[in-house]
């Protein structure tokens, strides 16, 4: 057995490494976006790529998101594999028409003749003290658009593995990067980084018997913290990290809920019309007879993302999660 040299690394470093490795392995991979070249991106995730691969491979574009994604579509039509960076979640909205009217359906409308191997990286979510329009959780919009894969990592290793898989995918992938985890450190083996394939498999981050927390992206560490805290209450919580919202891994999620009989979905995105409603419905449809209580949701409030000095009241935290777990009809067991 070989010893692996685990080193602390940040999610941002793993993402950079994923693009670098993909660009080195495949000359058709092109990174493009606002400030991704000389500056290395406002979060420095593309740091060094322009220097190493040249500005034709890592391109500072004009400041226009529809144009960035629209030209990336044309580049993909010609056989390139563009990796587009949207600078912030809310800055991606101008590109929605290209995303919905073209990116998501080019394969379908051409009967498979013209697939679009495109990766759209979007830093998303709150918790970094960002002012207005810098903290949205926009995943529900993407999930509601057939033809897109929607992926989000929660660990350093997954950040690398999922991004490599996204870039390698022949389908368009919206790659949501939890921006408050960019600087989270984790033990990682950069000498042997692993690709996570296929896209679409959830993973059990923490095993437990009492109830399942179903979550993804920035809420995964919060749920793990909640699970630790729950031990004092006598609850042994399982935490499922979805990793991919589309395709959705019904199998892993439902296997967990069937074991525990109780589930709470946790995400920053608003609850109404948010991912949690879909997930709760899917779990209920498939696991009804195993459920001891209704599937509950802990979500962001149904409000425009709040100003930074108030965001802690909005974001799902440990207490709100434990409160929801407490409402899972435990008394019925006695």
């Amino acid at each position, binding site marked *: 057995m070989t010893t692996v040299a685990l080193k602390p690394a940040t999610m941002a470093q793993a993402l950079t490494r994923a693009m670098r490795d993909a660009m080195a392995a495949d000359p058709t991979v092109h990174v493009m976006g606002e400030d991704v070249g000389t500056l290395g991106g406002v979060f420095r995730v593309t740091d060094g790529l322009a220097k190493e691969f040249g500005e034709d491979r890592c391109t500072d574009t004009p400041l226009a998101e529809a144009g960035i*994604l629209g*030209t990336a579509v044309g580049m993909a*039509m*010609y056989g390139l594999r563009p990796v587009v960076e949207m600078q912030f979640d809310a800055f991606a909205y101008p590109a929605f028409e290209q995303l919905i009217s073209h990116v998501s359906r080019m394969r379908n*409308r051409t009967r*498979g003749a013209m697939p679009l191997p495109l990766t759209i990286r979007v830093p998303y979510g709150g918790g970094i003290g960002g002012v207005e329009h810098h903290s949205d959780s926009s995943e529900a919009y993407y999930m509601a658009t057939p033809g897109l894969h929607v992926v989000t990592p929660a660990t350093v290793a997954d950040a690398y593995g999922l991004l490599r898989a996204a870039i390698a995918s022949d389908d368009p992938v919206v790659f949501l990067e939890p921006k408050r985890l960019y600087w989270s450190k984790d033990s990682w083996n950069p000498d042997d980084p692993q690709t996570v394939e296929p896209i679409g498999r959830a993973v059990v981050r923490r095993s437990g018997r009492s109830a399942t927390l179903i979550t993804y992206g920035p809420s995964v560490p919060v749920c793990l913290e909640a699970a630790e805290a729950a031990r004092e209450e006598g609850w042994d919580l399982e935490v499922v990290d979805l990793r991919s919202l*589309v395709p959705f891994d019904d199998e892993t999620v439902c296997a967990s809920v069937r074991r525990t009989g109780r589930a709470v979905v946790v995400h920053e995105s608003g609850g109404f019309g948010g991912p949690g409603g879909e997930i709760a419905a899917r779990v209920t449809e498939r696991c009804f007879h195993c459920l001891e209580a209704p599937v509950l949701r802990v979500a962001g409030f149904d409000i425009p993302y709040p100003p930074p000095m108030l965001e802690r009241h909005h974001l799902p935290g440990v207490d709100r999660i434990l409160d929801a777990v407490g409402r899972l009809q435990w008394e019925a067991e006695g």
Partner: protein
Amino acid sequence: MTVMEQRGAYKPTPPPAWQPRTDPAPLLPDVRPYRVLGTEAAAQADPGLLRRLYAELVRGRRYNAQATALTKQGRLAVYPSSTGQEACEVAAALVLEDRDWLFPSYRDTLAAVARGVDPVQALTLLRGDWHTGYDPREHRVAPLCTPLATQLPHAVGLAHAARLKGDDVVALAMVGDGGSSEGDFHEALNFAAVWQAPVVFLVQNNGFAISVPLAKQTAAPSLAHKAVGYGMPGRLVDGNDAAAVHQVLADAVRRAREGGGPTLVEAITYRVEAHTNADDATRYRGDAEVETWRGHDPIALLEHELTERGLLDEEGIQAARNAAETMAADLRERMNQDPPLDPMDLFAHVYAEPTSQLREQQAQLRAELAAGQEGAH
């Protein structure tokens, strides 16, 4: 220390020298739309090209008429006719080399057909048995694009990618006057100019965006003038003069191919028919205006020039019409057959591999279809 505090020590200096990044004068369009037919330039035009343009115009008009008739017969869901605009449609297709790419809008079925797309496959979108009926790579014709101007950035990206790969490929993107108001028009032109992408933008200014006239669309001196703001040349051309459109586009294509960057061409033309069969043009324009444009008809103009110069006789005219009739008869016959439809195709090309959710839905539809068949027995 504020400026007030350091008064005396502060020495005002002029700002760094500024000058415009490009001399705007050569980019400005000539405000007289360029014409060839009926001018001295006609003598320089290649007779073979003129005859080819003529044959394609005649065929194109017949195609429009046949497609409109098929709509009335219920064979097409809708047809946005390019009658009156055939010169732009045909010239755009003929000006390109095989390896080049055409990016048509929904009104440019004719350009796709003139480039070689099968006339029936080109109508798939409008018949409604699928969205794009042809393989875009076969003739290098992007899907007919319905959301206005959204195909323009695709053309820029494709041309840019070709250049990065070292391929000698030009993209020609078609859009209307209404489409020129869209944000994607602006972003595409800006990206094209910044990247010096080998793209030609052809705006067919046909006077109306459905019912809205150009005066409500823009306050620019002309749509071609918009080019200057992006740092690319703008050209105005008589859009009903097939020889002129072809020449202006050929110049722009050559310039793009030689690394000179993009050009914006505005072709002044007129949509003789209503927006589609579902539109009533009498609600927003008068017959007199339409009649004026019938006097400046692209086919009649070219036919007049060719016959005047002895390049076309009655026999040649008849041959072009006969070829058009043959195409129309074939189109009629094939369009009068019901297209094969397989409901299971709904799930075929959503992703490279269907998700488990789609597989479940596929199974549901298959079961419904099976139950329906059983019920029919």
